[in-house]
Structure formats: C-alpha cells, structure tokens
C-alpha cells in the first residue's frame, strides 16, 4: 500500500465502481472495458453499501502488517446490485457467521505503518 493506494482512495473509501452506459452492468473494482458487452462507456458509480455473505473464512495467520488483527475474517459479499466484493468482516466471530447473513459496508483502518507511518483506511463489512 503506497502511491497506488492514494490514487484509489475513492474505491477504498466510498466503494466507487463503474456502471456500463450501454448494458447497465456494474463492476467493482472498476474495469476499463465492460466485461459483459465490451463497451468502453463506463461511468463512476457508488456501489450499494449493503449485501449478503456468499462465503467466508477465518485466517489465523495473515500477511505481515496485519498480525494485530488476527484472527481475521474474510468474506465475499454479494452487494444489492449483484456485484461481488471481497473484504474483511469485523465486530463478530467466525461462530456467528453464516452464508446469507446480511452485512453493510463500514469505514475502518485497513493497515497502518507502525506508529510513525501512514494510516490506510477503507471499507470492511459488519453484520447488518
């Protein structure tokens, strides 16, 4: 997470994806060419902030820089427009998760570079 993160802030902060002006398909993360119809007429679109869990897993060992958040819960969420998003789910435990649970996107710290480096924020999910 560095320069590219700062360029992609709206994606992480606001769940901004794209919508195809020709076939109305929506994508997150954003694409440059519509995966359904091939159109290049794509406009920014706020993704819905609610959805349901398609699948989830618990990571007891994570990547370097995320150790403090172990055990970490990851899930794939199908948003209300059908778009599937991978994200962390927080404020719960694996025992309390089920496929189909309703969730909503929240704004959280993703990672920080120690106590002197930068803080990286973005979306995660909590049970709705």
């Amino acid at each position, binding site marked *: 997470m560095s320069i590219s993160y700062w360029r992609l*802030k*709206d994606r992480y*902060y*606001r769940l901004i994806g794209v919508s195809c002006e020709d076939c109305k398909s929506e994508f997150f993360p954003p694409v440059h060419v519509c995966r359904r119809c091939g159109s290049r007429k794509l406009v920014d679109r706020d993704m819905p902030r609610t959805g349901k869990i398609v699948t989830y897993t618990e990571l007891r060992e994570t990547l370097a820089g995320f150790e*403090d*958040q172990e055990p970490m819960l990851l899930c794939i969420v199908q948003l209300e427009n059908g778009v599937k998003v991978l994200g962390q789910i*927080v*404020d719960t435990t694996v025992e309390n998760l089920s496929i189909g649970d309703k969730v909503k996107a*929240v*704004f*959280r*710290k*993703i990672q920080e570079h120690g106590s002197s480096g930068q*803080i990286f*924020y973005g979306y*995660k999910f909590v049970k709705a």
Partner: protein
Amino acid sequence: MKTHYDVGIAGYGVYLPLYRLPTTEIARVWKGGGAGPNKEKAVASIDEDSSTMAVEAARRAMDMAEVSRLGAIFVGTESKPYAVKPTSTIVAQALGQHFVLASDMEFACKAATEAIQVIRGLVGSGMIQNGLAIGVDTAQGRPGDDLEFTTGSGAAAYVLSRSSPETLATVEAGVSYVTDTGDFWRRQNEKYPRHLSRFTGEPAYFHHVETSVKQLFEAYGLKASDFTYAVFHQPNPRFPVEVAHRLGFKAEQIKTGLLNPMIGNTYSASSPMGLAAVLDEAKPGDRVMIASFGSGAGSDAFALRVTDAIEKKRKKAVKVADLISKNTKIDYATYAKFRGKFTK
C-alpha cells in the same frame, strides 16, 4: 451570539463502537475490585480511530440531512490519529466533498460545540448553505489512572443549514465562555493527558458550565423551566446532575441526554451525543438546552427549538438508545489489545 439568518439542524448522526468494557474490569486490574462511577464504557475496536468513527457518524447525519453539498467540515477531537494531517480531509474524501473548508478543532471536550458555533456563523452569514460539525474521540486514559474508568469512544455529527421546513431544530441562541484554566492537558508528543484531579470540579467544570448557561439565560431572557430537555457535558455521571441542580433544572429534564453511566465520557462527542438522544424522542415545539465543557477551559451553551420536521427526519435516525443497547462486553486484556495499551 445571534446569526443574520436563522440556522437549524438538517440532520444528525451518532456512532458508537460495539464493544463495552465494564468498569468492574478496570477496578479488578488496578484497584483490587469494585467499580467505577459509570457502569461501562464504549471502546473502539482495533481498526477504529477518530477518523473512522467520524466518517460513520457523518454518513448517518448526511443520510438524514439529504443535502448534496457541504460548504464546511469541522472535526472536533483531541484524539487525532495524526498530530499533523487533518482528520477533516479524511472525512471529506469519504463523503466525496471536496469544495469545502475543512479543519480540525481542538478544545478538549468542547471542540465539537466550538465547531457548531463556527458553522452556525458560516451558515448564518450566508457564506455557506450547509456545514458539518463532528465531535469524536477515542478518549485516552492512562492505564490505572482514575480517568480510565470514564474515557469512552464515540462520535456525533450535525449538518447545519439555513432554517427551512427541512430543518428539525432551530438554534435560537448560543454563547461561549472561556478562561485560562489548568485543569487538564496533554503536552505535544505525550500519549496520555494529565489532570489536577481536585481542580477539575469547581474551578473548571462547574465554574464554566454555570457561567455559560447563566449568560445564555441572561442574554436571551431564558430560564431553566423554559426547556423540556437539558444536556450537559458528562465527564462522569455526577457532575452533570449536580450542575443541572445548581442551575434550576429538574431530574426529568436531563434524564434522556445523560449517557455517561452506560458509555462513559466520549469527550468531544459527549454533549452532542446527549443532544442526539434527546432529538430521538423530542416533540415539535420542545426547547432543548445544551452546554458543553472543555478543559483549558470553556463552555458553549445553546438554546434550540425542535420543529415539525423532527417527526419525518428522525425516521432515518439510527437511535442512540439502540446503539447503546447493541453491544459486546470485553475484558481488560481485549481492551488493552484494541487500544494499544501493550507496548511491544
């Protein structure tokens, strides 16, 4: 302090983290048993800070306000994630608001009411249409210090706009009072604040809150019985009850806005969150008084009148009572992990 145009609240939003630390846990670890003055305190999770809680409260306030453009965003906090780098720009980015005056306000627990005063001025002068004032803190208390019982985490946000049929309460009047008082402070580069415990009551909290409220009464011809509700800053459960009594308010006027026993002192968010709890149940025509306190020291006091729009607007409210009751208890070790009390 009056404004050229009338200013009202177009939307409000509160955020409370999920976790609660019972004060019996703090007493168990540090005092050999017992409990603190409040039953529990709200604790931000490991991935939460003042920026994340400010964004969550702000999103709720914006949902209720239904305004598309903000002219100003002020975040009042004493727990900035960065000493240099504004929290308000993080909120602005998360809300997609870029042509705004954005700044962080600092004045211990009254930084948010300070933000409300300034936004009132900007809206009331006609310089901006809508402004967002946020109070947020992940209140820091040194482990083992008496402050640790009460220091809670939370956020409250208000969208202020020119008074219209869409504003749910009108700010009728507001006053501010300050003196140089050394009751509580944190020096640059220090992790935890310090306080002169015997100095925090009479010369600090009581003197400033009583003076600002009396000034509000005197300047605008008001008295305690004019208000249906009163909300005071809540450093502990006792001070707001005592100051209300001294100023002639009755227990039922302050009951709704008194949240400290359940969540602790959310610092900058404390009195603004109490006001939100009142707005969750107030009726059109009700008058509400709110008085903050910030160490250092000062108090802002406001008189508000609830409008007919409240009934429609609060259908969108995430109620403070629901946020308080939905919680997960944690022990001291989990709290220490979440709030970085371990030094690695």
